[in-house]
């Protein structure tokens, strides 16, 4: 049992992290909330020094009544959901495959993990120009080789393309976490099941998958947080055109392209709300795995 002494020591040790994060959360959040009730158009000469006009909830109503708002929420959810499904499903399969005995295991692992080391900007640039370009891209050459008309990836299949690029970046992360979880699986238990004549699918469903549930939870939780904020990939590939405008991209357009900080800040508040709804939703579904 922890003593009173260690309890207060523990609190002391927790303090720096909590205080720092509290500051990092509260200061920008307060400023964002403050701006969201103000008319703040820097290009029109508004600035903190000159004082900003109070506009009540005008920014909030304007942000949601914009025709781009609901589509952007939908786009955000589709991207997050799509990438999560792809990375978790293929991550599990890859992890199982990589756990099998084989020659050159270390090398293959590096290949699979490598995309995670690539900066999002670089990977978006490489995919956009060298693979998805409808004239000079490698995929266009491949399609032509098989006698098909090249696909205009980033305009006509913009969402699948984007989801693919992002999945390519995050699949290694999922695989890595899941692989390590699988490695801790008691192989004797599996062997016993195999000897009992349990078919592979059953073994997967009743032994492997339950064992992975906690790792999957972690993958989903951490990825969701990063995916909700996805930005560079869209900025580089489509610039928000062709139905790829996510909520955070819409905020970018409001703050930087339209130079309306008040409106963008209101959008930021909505984004926090959306993120928390998603998080709560996730907690409900997978949260119980965290206690383990």
């Amino acid at each position, binding site marked *: 049992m922890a003593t009173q002494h260690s309890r207060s020591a523990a609190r002391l040790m927790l303090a720096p992290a909590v205080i720092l994060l509290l500051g990092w959360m509260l200061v920008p959040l307060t400023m964002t909330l403050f701006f969201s009730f103000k008319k703040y158009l*820097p290009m029109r000469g508004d600035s903190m020094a000159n004082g900003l006009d109070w506009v009540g909830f005008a920014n909030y109503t304007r942000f949601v009544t914009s025709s781009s708002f609901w589509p952007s929420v939908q786009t955000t959810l589709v991207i997050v959901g799509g990438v999560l499904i792809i990375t978790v499903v293929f991550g599990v399969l890859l992890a199982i495959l990589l756990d099998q005995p084989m020659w050159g295991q270390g090398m293959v692992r590096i290949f699979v993990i490598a995309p995670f080391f690539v900066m999002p900007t670089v990977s978006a640039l490489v995919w956009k120009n060298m693979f998805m370009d409808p*004239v000079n891209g490698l995929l266009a050459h491949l399609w032509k080789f098989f006698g098909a008309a090249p696909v205009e990836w980033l305009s006509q299949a913009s969402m699948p393309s984007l989801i693919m690029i992002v999945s390519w970046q995050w699949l290694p992360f999922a695989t890595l976490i899941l692989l390590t979880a699988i490695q801790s699986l008691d192989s004797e238990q599996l062997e016993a099941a195999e000897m009992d004549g349990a078919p592979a699918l059953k073994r997967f469903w009743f032994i492997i998958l339950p064992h992975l549930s906690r790792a999957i939870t972690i993958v989903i939780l951490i990825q969701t947080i990063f995916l909700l904020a996805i930005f560079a990939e869209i900025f580089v590939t489509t610039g928000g055109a062709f139905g790829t405008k996510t909520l955070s991209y819409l905020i970018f357009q409001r703050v930087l392209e339209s130079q309306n900080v008040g409106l963008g800040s209101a959008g930021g508040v909505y984004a926090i709300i959306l993120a928390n709804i998603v998080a709560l939703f996730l907690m409900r579904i997978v949260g119980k795995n965290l206690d383990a």
Partner: protein
Amino acid sequence: MNPTRLAPRLTLGACALLASTALASAETLTIATVNNGDMIRMQGYTDDFTAKTGHEVEWVTLEENVLRQRVTTDISTKGGAFDIMTIGMYETPIWGANGWLVPLDDLSAEYDVDDILPAMRDGLSHDGTLYAAPFYGESSMVMYRTDLVEAAGMTMPEAPTWDQIAELARAMTDRENEINGICLRGKAGWGEGGAFITVTANSFGARWFDENWRAQFDQPEWANALNFFVDLMADAGPPGYATNGFNENLSLFQQGKCGMWIDATVAASFVTNPNDSTVADKVGFALAPDTGLGKRSNWLWAWALAIPAGTQKADAAKQFIEWATSKEYIELVASKEGWANVPPGARTSLYENPEYQKVPFAQKTLESIKAADPTNPTVMPVPYVGIQFVAIPEFAGIATEVSQEFSAVYAGQQTVDEALAKAQALTTDAMEAAGY
């Protein structure tokens, strides 16, 4: 006489003058710039500036969109991260009006500010005060393949109409051999496809706003322009043009996959450069097309250097601007890399130089620039300044969203009418938000 021999004497004079002020203190200037070829080239000559003035230069080179967001954030918050910013004709008058830029009204006599092309000078001024010095300027014009036009048994007029362009483009199109009659910008973004469709619309008699700042996308002129463009590109454009911007079209043209290309005049030096272009010796030039209504579809743009107000290094920054946009700099580049590679479109004297007049695209570039009038850009009257843009702070945001709707049309995801209706709605909404 060889003009390069003149250069050392001129620079010597400038050098002596600058040295006297420079001795006081050597500064390090931080300059934000765009990653275009002429700017990259300038970075290579930085040593020349340092040798003359003693000031060091730190470059921050960014892609256009990143640069724009970066410098805008910095200037509107008075961040002071940069001593010189590379900005365009859209930003300069707005920022100048806000008092964010150091006025360039005390440039030295040697600099000869009156030599700057009037169109450029006007576009970079607010209330008659120059706020940014043009490093290079451009309009837009038709670049076409002389061999393909000939093969089609046709001729390109000096000043074509859109109908003539369309007829030629369709005649040159050869899908079997991957030759597209015409390559035009369709990429979303106000400075990309947005700029092109705006100038096209100008020539069809359309305008962004009427005199009362009401959006005009519900007017027939816009529908005509957009329908014409979409039909033409469907028949004679390259696949996937909805994501093609300046650079994509440049590389298509250089690879010989375009019969013609209507775009920035600065592209002329790239398509005629035999190192990069497979069609360098087969390119002709013509003015941007019109529809007989009195406005050609050519724009006006300059990349210019400006000093943010509040910098501690304004004097050194001015010295840099004088160096980078001077006649001597042009001669320096000409002596090292040839006249075709000097930064074009900024100075009158360049176009009076007999050496430069030998460059095949010089004359058409000048004519195109002169044909552009930012203060009177459209057939019907408008309350704004700017040809391919509207010089109000809200424009960049609005036009980017509008051009995204148009790009969706080019990609076949919605109809012209749907896109125009959305454009009208979102423009009206944004203008309301801005208090018009």
